[in-house]
């Protein structure tokens, strides 16, 4: 890990010397910048989801849009990867395992989200959902990039969504959507923490240094 860090640092330094945007050599730059970028993206998705969820829950209507609405998790919702793992246990995992878990979870969530996208009625919401989906796709890619830059093998391709039958009635379907958004929020919140931690552990690249010096 250390030697990688030094290597990436040197790479970043070299790339920044000619004052070119450091992005041109992101592949070589590797982990440092990728982690930072993934972290920023996670925060951005969190931000997007906050507004999107509000809009979407309103679209679903009451009681889903009530702030204190906290329904029990239905069994059929288990197909949505849950982030409700014990925090200590989660921290105990290796970076690789956590990254892989993230990768898998977002791949899975993205699939459900795309299904959701097709059902939304209003164009505005659909547009925002599509934008969110695309960004989430980017996050999956980013995590993959971080993993590869850190030398971890990518987990196997996301298993096809289990052939669970679509919800029989509208309320249950809305319940699924509610939980999907809720899980997404949890995942993104946790991922942000993960990447922040990872970012600190990985020897910073020049860009990282600069950002940290500015109080990030």
């Amino acid at each position, binding site marked *: 890990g250390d030697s990688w860090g030094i290597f990436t640092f040197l790479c970043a330094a070299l790339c920044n010397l000619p004052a070119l*945007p450091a*992005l*041109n050599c*992101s592949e070589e730059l590797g982990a440092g910048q990728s982690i930072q*970028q*993934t972290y*920023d*993206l996670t*925060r*951005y998705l*969190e*931000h997007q989801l906050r507004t999107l969820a509000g809009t979407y829950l309103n679209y679903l209507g009451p009681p889903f849009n009530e702030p204190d609405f906290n329904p029990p998790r239905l069994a059929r919702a288990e197909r949505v990867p849950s982030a409700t793992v014990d925090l200590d246990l989660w921290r105990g995992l290796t970076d690789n395992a956590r990254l892989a878990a993230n990768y898998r979870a977002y791949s899975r969530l993205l699939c459900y989200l795309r299904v959701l996208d097709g059902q939304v009625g209003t164009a505005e919401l659909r547009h*925002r959902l599509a*934008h969110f989906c*695309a*960004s989430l*796709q*980017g*996050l999956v*890619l*980013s995590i*993959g*990039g971080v993993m590869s830059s850190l030398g971890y093998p990518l987990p196997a391709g996301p298993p096809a969504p289990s052939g669970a039958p679509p919800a029989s009635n509208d309320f249950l379907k809305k319940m699924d959507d509610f939980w999907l958004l809720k899980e997404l929020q949890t995942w993104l919140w946790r991922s942000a923490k993960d990447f922040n931690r990872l970012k600190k552990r990985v020897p910073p690249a020049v860009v990282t240094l*600069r*950002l940290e010096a*500015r109080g990030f």
Partner: protein
Amino acid sequence: MLSGWNWVACGFCLLLNICFLEASGGLVQSCGHIIPESPVLALGSNFTALCILNESCLDFGNIYASQIIWKIKNRVVPKEQYREINRTVSSVTFNDTSSLATPLTCNILADGQIEQNIYGITITVGLPPEKPKNLSCVVHQVSQLTYPMICTWNPGRHTFLDTQYRLKYRWARESFPDCVPTDVNNSCTIPDVHFFVNLEIWVEAANALGKAESDPLVLDPIDIVKPLSPHNLSVSSGILPTVLKLSWENRISDPVMKLKFNIRYRITGDTNWMEVPSEDTASPRTSFSVQGLRPYTEYVFSIRCMKEDGVGYWSDWSEEKTGITTEDEPSKGPSLWRIIDASHSPAFWTVHLMWKALKPYEANGVILQYELTVRDKSSLSSPLEKYNVTSTNLTLQLPNSTYEVTVIARNRVGGSPPSVLLIPASNSKAPVKNLRTLPKYDKLWVGWTAPNSYVLKYVIEWCLVSSTSDCIIEWQTALGDVQGIDLKGIKPFKCYLITVYPLYADGQGSGQSVKAYLKQDRPSKGPTVQTKKVGKAEAVLTWNHLTVDEQNGFIRNYTILYKTIDGNETVVTVDPSKTEYTLSSLTSDTLYTVRMMASTDNGSRSGPDFTFTTQKFGKGEIEAIVVPVCLAFLLIVLLAVLFCFNKRDLIKKHIWPIVPDPSKSNIAQWSPQVPAKHNFSSKDQMYPEGSFTDVSVVEIEADDKKSFSEQDLKPFDLLKKEKSTSEGHSSGIGGSSCMSSPRQSVSDSDDGETTQNTSSTVQYSTVVLNGYRDQTPVQVFSRSESTQPLLDSEERSEDHAGGGDSTAERQQYFRQNGGQDETNTDRLCFERTKQITHANEGDLVGFVQLQISGQSSQPLGLGMEKNTQEAALSNVLQTSTEGQTVRPEIVEENPLSVDEMPKSYLPQTVRQGGYMPQ
């Protein structure tokens, strides 16, 4: 012709085709074709086409590949480019496709004459696309959540072909649909981009001839964002008068992008922007307090933002918002000055206090009022006078003394520091030195040399000097350490009077003044010159100074130009202080044209022409000529008068010639006695030295006759007639009578003899007259009744009275006669005439005797004289008788003066013979 041929060929072709149709059993079949079909060729490459004939056609119409003609449009391709591959195939080769045009046709020359088209192809020539260069992208934020990305590139050269440009972009393992530009070939807009994932972007250009890709651009779109500027900017004033607080809303959320800002501001009405230091606004925020502003001033603010790390683009400047800072106390007191008018009474001044309204940045608010205090410094006990005014001047009547005036400007917040002006009783301190001005573009610089002592400040007064309006004083103050200021608002071509007063801590220096122009011009008119006095060779010119308004500058000199009509112009330069000049060395009696020119530093202008004529004579010249002439004339007149007077006898003689007494002529004839002659000649002998032969003696007597009255002249004329008849005879007698006269005076003493003579003459005369003439009876009568004695006496009295006057004349004539005694001249002459009568003959004496007897009736006085005369006469007669021996000589002489001789008788006759006028 050619097209005609073509039609013929087509018609033939159609026939052939119909034949083929029949031959091939109903199928429409071409007789051949070209390979390749419709090629797209690169410009400059080489190209070969083949025309392949169908076997069936060969059989039917004896058509072979050797008969093929290639054409580009209507132009036949040269045969050198053909190659016959076999009977049915002909090829054509072009080394450069740029010479190609469409269509390319393959034709057959059927029967050696008729050209038939077999097949044609279209050819497209163009270029493969170049590699697009300079790809760059910007993400423009158009709304809170919409971030389209616009990429632009340089497509390179024109391809002449339909070329597709595609903007391709992808993530590491995911591609997006291409962005295809519409209408343009050098930019494309991706409607939605996703941040924080690196994107690879490139451009692909493709046409029929090839494909080219630009270098890929890999970037995170978040790094190329041009965000929307912050909006809803608001400005609020804080507690401090120098601070304004800005607040705004950002249109990009913090998780997306952290922002830094630029804030710029300016005073309303000013054009220069100031900027808040960028370090102060380099972190995300939605408000900022701008400090260090002026109180009570309106500012305009504007803000922009960009990504905090400086990667990306600045947004546009936001809309401008204004805000006003709160009021503050005035920062300084108003400049204070005074004008003292002491003209009304010496003991009381009219003091016009005036001060300048504070500039907005000094006033720091709305000035509500000015507070003035006036204190008499000469007496400590005098009260402090206070005035509150809203205007910027105050006029006070104050007794002549030293005062201290203060003024404070007050606004809502507070009062300014006081401005103090000391008005001393007299400006006794040192003035500034070396006051001077210098124009600087549109400003007038006033400079001076400071006095030796410390000066608090200077007051510069100036005013426009004009003849039509009063000098309205403007003024301004300058600090004590400056030695020059620029005056603004100075008009060109106007005269300004500038005065500088130094103000000391304890008094005031006297003002130094200077006149100045910002810019000078030539005078607006020239002086009008006139003559005050014109002489013969000089003329005094006068003129009035130009008014200040006409001068347009400092008059440096006057130039007088004068000339005669045909002469050269003479130029004289005159000092500008003069209003009079004397032109000298002019030509007399000449028309001169004179004009005058006033000159400033920037030119000169002439006044109207004035003409004058010099005089013919100089001053005193006429007098010098006239006076002598008059004098000379007078002298001549005088001389002439004198001459005439002197020569009056002679003149008389000329004008009234003596008519001889006819009676006397008779006597001459009648008395031939020699003794008488003897007497005369004896007389002459006795006085040979006297030589009284001169005729002039007789003339004098004639002259005297002239003075007689008209009355006398009448009888005289009568006598003349008488004389004319007896002229020749009387001559000798006259001459002798004259000669006898001088001797008479000598022999006056002998009275006895005269009496004797007298008695004898009376007898004679009476006889002669009667005998000689027919008229005589009349004369005889008259004689007897004669009043002669009376006339005679009158005559004598006249002689006596005029004796003094005629003395000189007589003297002259006597002088000719030898300078005889003058004292008796009168009487001599008188006696002589009598003598002549006596001398003529003894008869004459008798005649006189008659007269005398007649005189006895005269008054006593006269009678006395008569007696003496008679006595004298008798003497003469006596003497004449004695000098008879000389007589012949005299007779000889007498004929010379024959003409004159008779004249001598006339006066005698008149005088003696008072009886003549009857």
